[in-house]
């Protein structure tokens, strides 16, 4: 743990370095960058040790305070999420150093760096805290760090609004977490996680209440449907490297929280698994559908996070069903898929947001309909973005395929498990639909942003960004390719993490997941074969063309002689048939005029449910206004009355 805390201290120091020398911005930028890289590298040492099969590392201090000792530990579950945080976080941090340097007119750059470092440090503490008080403290630090990082460009109206929505949502979630740990803690000897685990048997009926509170409280952070309403707003408004961390990493702490609570609560009843699975299906399908409807590049990517959280939940759900119906093989596969998808999504989503950041930097716009043809000006960004796109769609030979493949296998295995879990086989159809829709969505993004003709002057003038932007993204892309080509690098560790969550002994879990791990090697063979065969055909084609003529011409427009960039299919028109199939739930209104076609996407939950609900509440609360006079005596009276009522209640109920 010494290594870990040194790493955290280095991360904090990097934040301090960013604000310490305001007169020497260049120096402070360098020191900030190298300290965060060093911090991440240092903190990774125990992570890799634990994932390689080492013992759990832990430390406890500040004993004798209310709420029990402050325990920090790195078990495989924590180690896995630390890998996610540090891996994607450090790339985003390096990118942010470069990205923020050019944002000076939008906000305070040193402050932006400071809150980002704080956010990273808080994230590492969230997943290592093993008692309630430091966990909630780190959780709150993370929420606030996230808030300040999101509202970097706080002179813009929409950014402030997004920040507000995020702040309200995250605190609603935290409130539920207080309820959760309060309910649970009242049965426990102390508020360490070990104490909570020991008390899980004594919870009785409130066990399900605890689960529901965890699902809602952590769900707001994870952002599954319908608790996702804050997510597209905040992730679109933040600077790109912050979006990368918010979308790739911060929402995963919600998943971490759920997994942690699940391990502490012990074996789940079946209905928890079904709930999580159904939420996952809804989230995945609706998330990708709503993503298709977007024309704002970053908002679109944010909706894909909703989709991917859904895929993770599907894995969790089917894994929980495996535990509930005593099919350990199913449990291990489902959870390993979910856990692996957590890492994979962090990698490719961060990559895509960094790519979007490059586009934004080069053109100044996130509007798909104003882009096009960037492949010529920005070939490196395009290649990296294409890798991320293929990965998020779940295509071989990239990492997204590996984890979706695990989840698919779990769903199929549930089908022939001869238990009630077999109905979850229909989840496979949902996941396939999600894959198809994601393919359509990223074909749209890649095609409209990077291919074809530039739709505006800014798109035509776009030039490649500098190395500082490209190297972090390239590192993430390399990780995506590496996991796709050599899946066994991560299959083993993810099975170990799944073993911890399901309570299956590690050796048994590895034995149960053996077919999948062996198949991982075959996937590598298949991927290599695909690359070789395609390359061979490419070469044959080039060989055939060498003997004949290759001519250049204008695109064939069926005889029309002067095609223009405006005649291309737009993002709206590309997505229109799919959205039409799904009708009202796609949340899209189409505006058709004789010479134009436009679709407008709504944030359904926020605009159609929460905001109207808020209006009703506010109207209703007008009735309460008379009690708010602004007279101090009256307020004192309220105070005395409340305290007296509480005392009377306690007296009647007997001593606590």
């Amino acid at each position, binding site marked *: 743990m010494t290594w870990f805390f040194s790493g955290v201290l280095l991360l904090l120091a990097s934040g301090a370095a960013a604000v310490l020398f305001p007169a020497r911005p260049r120096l402070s930028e360098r020191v900030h960058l190298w300290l965060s890289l060093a911090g991440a590298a240092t903190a990774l040492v125990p992570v890799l040790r634990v994932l390689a099969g080492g013992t759990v590392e832990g430390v406890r201090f500040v004993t004798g305070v209310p709420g029990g000792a402050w325990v920090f530990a790195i078990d495989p579950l924590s180690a896995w999420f630390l890998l996610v945080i540090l891996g994607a976080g450090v790339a985003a941090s390096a990118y942010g150093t470069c990205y923020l340097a050019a944002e000076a007119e939008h906000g305070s750059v040193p402050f932006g760096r400071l809150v980002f470092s704080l956010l990273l440090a808080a994230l590492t503490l969230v997943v290592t805290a093993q008692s309630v008080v430091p966990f909630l403290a780190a959780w709150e630090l993370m929420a606030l760090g996230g808030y300040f990082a999101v509202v970097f460009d706080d002179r813009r109206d929409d950014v402030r609004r997004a920040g507000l929505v995020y702040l309200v949502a995250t605190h609603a979630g935290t409130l539920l977490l207080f309820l959760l740990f309060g309910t649970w803690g009242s049965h426990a000897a102390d508020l360490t996680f070990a104490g909570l685990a020991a008390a899980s048997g004594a919870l009785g009926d409130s066990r399900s209440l605890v689960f529901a509170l965890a699902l809602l409280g952590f769900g707001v952070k994870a952002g599954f449907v319908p608790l996702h309403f804050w997510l597209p707003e905040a992730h679109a408004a933040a600077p790109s490297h912050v979006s990368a961390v918010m979308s790739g990493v911060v929402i995963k702490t919600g998943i971490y929280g759920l997994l942690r609570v699940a391990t502490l609560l012990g074996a789940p009843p079946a209905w928890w698994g079904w709930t999580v699975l159904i939420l996952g299906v809804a989230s995945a399908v609706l998330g990708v559908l709503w993503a298709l409807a977007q024309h704002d590049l970053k908002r679109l990517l944010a909706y894909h996070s909703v989709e991917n959280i859904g895929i993770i939940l599907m894995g969790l759900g089917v894994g929980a069903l495996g535990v509930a119906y005593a099919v350990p093989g199913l449990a291990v596969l489902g959870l390993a898929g979910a856990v692996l998808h957590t890492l994979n999504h962090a990698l490719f989503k961060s990559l895509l947001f960094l790519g979007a950041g490059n586009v934004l930097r080069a053109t100044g716009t996130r509007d798909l309909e104003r882009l096009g043809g960037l492949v010529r000006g920005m070939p490196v960004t395009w290649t990296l973005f294409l890798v991320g796109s293929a990965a998020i769609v779940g295509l*071989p030979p990239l990492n997204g395929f590996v984890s979706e493949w695990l989840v698919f296998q779990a769903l199929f295995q549930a089908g022939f498990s001869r238990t009630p879990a077999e109905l979850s086989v229909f989840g496979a159809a949902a996941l396939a639909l999600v894959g198809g829709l994601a393919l359509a969505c990223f074909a749209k993004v890649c095609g409209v942003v990077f291919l074809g003709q530039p739709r505006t002057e800014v798109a035509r003038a776009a030039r490649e960004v500098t190395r500082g932007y490209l190297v972090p993204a390239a590192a993430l892309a390399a990780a995506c390719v590496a996991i796709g080509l050599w899946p066994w690098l991560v299959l083993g560790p993810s099975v170990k993490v799944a073993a911890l969550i399901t309570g299956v002994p590690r050796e048994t879990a590895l034995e149960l997941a053996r077919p999948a791990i062996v198949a991982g090697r075959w996937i590598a063979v298949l991927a290599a074969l695909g690359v070789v065969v395609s390359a061979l055909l490419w070469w044959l084609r080039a060989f055939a063309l060498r003997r004949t003529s290759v001519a250049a011409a204008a695109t064939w427009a069926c005889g029309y002689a002067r095609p223009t960039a405006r*005649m291309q299919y737009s993002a709206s028109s590309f997505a229109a048939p799919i959205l039409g199939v799904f009708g009202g739930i796609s949340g899209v209104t189409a505006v058709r005029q004789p010479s134009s076609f436009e679709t407008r996407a709504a944030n359904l939950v926020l605009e159609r449910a929460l905001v109207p609900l808020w209006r009703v509440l506010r109207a209703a609360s007008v009735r309460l206004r008379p009690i708010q006079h602004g007279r101090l005596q009256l307020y004192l009276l309220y105070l005395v009355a409340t305290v007296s009522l509480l005392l009377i209640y306690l007296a009647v109920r007997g001593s606590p």
Partner: protein
Amino acid sequence: MTVAIQVLVLVMVLALAPLFPGVVQRTKSLLTGRRGPPVLQLYADLAKLWRKGAVYSATTSLVFRLAPAIFAGTTLVAACLLPLDGGGAPLRFAGDVVAFAGLLALGRFALVLAALDTGSSFEGMGASREATFGSLVEPGLFLCFAALAIATSSTSLTTMLGRPLAAVWTAAAPALVLVAASLFVLTLAENGRVPVDDPATHLELTMIHEVMVLDHSGPDLALILYAGAVKLTVFGAMLVSLMIPRGGLGLIVSVAVLVAGLTAMAVAVGVVEAVMARLRLIRIPQFLVAASVLATFAIMLLLSA
């Protein structure tokens, strides 16, 4: 040794693949009172295209040139996962069925991007429709796979389409009939056949797959046409393996049954093309959902058994 034979059968089937679109065309022609092109026409077309030069739009980038090779490459590798000789596939592992679908999806992704690369509204239209109907085909395909997985307790195509099916036919024939029907509909849809798409029309506005590859020429177009034929054959081989379990047959008989089955499938596709008109675009989603519903019923039957 067995692997060598399996690879041999694979190569033979890949070599025969361009035959089947010809059979479809001939059937259709005969039924509509025409003679039609020779059955081996596609071979001649491929040879001709391979010798021809290519014309590239100035708008296109590397994506456009790479896509045909990727589409063909992924389709060929996907064929390696099928137990063509009735025994086993050259490549087989737990969960290879997902890899099969993943490879086909990668091929589709490449073609759709290539279409968008041209910056043409026609090809954009084709790409959009291909992506739309592709995303509706996918759940149906996975429901078929799920039914087969339940029936054979396996996630490997070699088992799902192999020996265990014979026992399933005696135990749960209705479910397998439903799966076969669903798979046939998906074969029509995935291969751009009537009633989803019409490979014969030359009116771009009504087409899906054909309009998407409008700008490809020369060897690129040859690769796309050949991969299309292989894809039809791959789907046909799945249907044949499903309908006629060939576990107990010898190698020669087994391969002969496969080729006869593929020809019969091509004739069936031709009959559908001759007797049906193309559906209106807004009806196609319903047609594809119907395929999913059939497979869903099959799963229900299998689960309740």
